[in-house]
């Protein structure tokens, strides 16, 4: 099953990337995520591994994932090592006017689970899609608030310098 959500954030790609590349922030903006912890010591970059869990229905579903593509300010993709089969991707593209188009994709399933596997994917899809959508909304809010905070701090500093 493939689900995706997208949103435009009023911030440069670097600002958004600072959030999506930092595993420490995931619990703060990813909806439904109950665990996103670094394993094997490498916190970010190609080959970084995380144990993640997403609450869907009666279970927290996920497992160990590994980052398999890491293009700074642009793309980050991961695949599952254990647990549910999954492949996810953050896709960031800059737009005119200082905006960044953010897309979050997730493919998931259990190979070999047969018709019940297919059925469970269909029933889980609305919940997963909702989690992705809310995650992007929270990401947008947090990134834009941070942009405003930085801008306000810069203005204060400029005023203090002028005074």
């Amino acid at each position: 099953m493939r689900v995706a959500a997208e949103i435009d954030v009023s911030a440069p790609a670097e600002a958004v990337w600072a959030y999506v590349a930092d595993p420490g922030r995931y619990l703060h903006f990813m909806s439904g995520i109950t665990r996103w912890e670094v394993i094997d010591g490498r916190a970010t970059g190609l080959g970084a591994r995380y144990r993640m869990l997403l609450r869907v229905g009666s279970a927290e579903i996920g497992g160990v994932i590994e980052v398999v593509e890491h293009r700074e300010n642009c793309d980050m993709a991961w695949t599952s090592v254990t647990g549910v089969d999954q492949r996810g991707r953050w896709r960031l593209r800059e737009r005119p006017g200082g905006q960044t188009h953010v897309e979050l994709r997730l493919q998931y399933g259990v190979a070999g689970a047969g018709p019940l596997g297919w059925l469970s994917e269909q029933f889980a899809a609305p919940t997963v899609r909702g989690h992705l959508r809310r995650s992007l909304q929270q990401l947008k809010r947090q990134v834009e608030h941070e942009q405003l905070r930085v801008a306000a701090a810069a203005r204060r500093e400029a005023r203090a310098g002028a005074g």
Partner: protein
Amino acid sequence: MDRPVAAGAAANGHAQVNGHGAEIVLAAAEGPAPRGSSWGLPGRLAGALAGQVTRRIPPADLDERDPDYIRERLPGFWLLASLWFRGEVRGLGNVPEKGGVLLVGNHSGGNLTPDTLVFTLAFSTYFGVERPFYQLAHNLVMSMPGLSSLRRFGTVAASPANARKALSAGAAVLVYPGGDHEVHRPSWEGNRVNFDGRKGFIRLALDQDVPIVPVVSVGGQETALFLTRGEGLSKLLGLDRLLRLKVLPISLAIPWGMNVGDMLGHVPLPAKITIEALPPIDLRAEFGPDPDVDEVYAHVMRVMQDTLDALAAERRLPVLG
């Protein structure tokens, strides 16, 4: 391959810790009617049946657990747990991440126990199917035709030897000390933890030096209207001696209406199942180097009952939760 521990224990008449009828002194024996029986033909037939059951109990082999098989069946479990029982499992973060742990639960729902289904799903997805996880079950469950696949899920016949073997291998072991006594309690006692004084799980945890994690569930006893355990009826028919069945429960359940014995199961009502795993209890750290079993038992019962009371207080309506 492992030797047939359960059968060996049965032959020796050892007490058993049972996942679906915990810590029962084995009275069932192979062969014909019990010695000294004056029951004639019915007694011999019942004895032969008991022998069949005993012979069908598979030898415990922990290697029969099959993570790939479990993984492929989790979506079906998820559908049932999420859509039918609206299952909710809390506190899995309390279960130690590694090493042997004894998960001690209260048990509900008759012979079909939705709490086991919901918890097994949640545990397997949370920790991954790679983590060894075994459930102890009544000999009768293990010997039923068509249920051999349970062994691939990690279900083993309940015996101290099997539990010790799994715990010493660093596995998580789920045990329901209340077993058949608790699982068939009347529906109006649904919010009461009742282990019937069975304390074998504490000795097991002490022997293996593993923590106990209480697992409290609510809702299972609302999947049918359980009327009575039928202990007197079981005794009258001699089932307690022949099949280690101390109960012959009577309930009102779909599709049977009046359901005696629940041997063929029933269609459970879609009661909401809520489960909470509590913080681990390190017996020697909390009760000293040589803990008093009765004191530990009272403590475990108290924390589980308190939690069950809290979970029950959250429910507004029967079945709907």
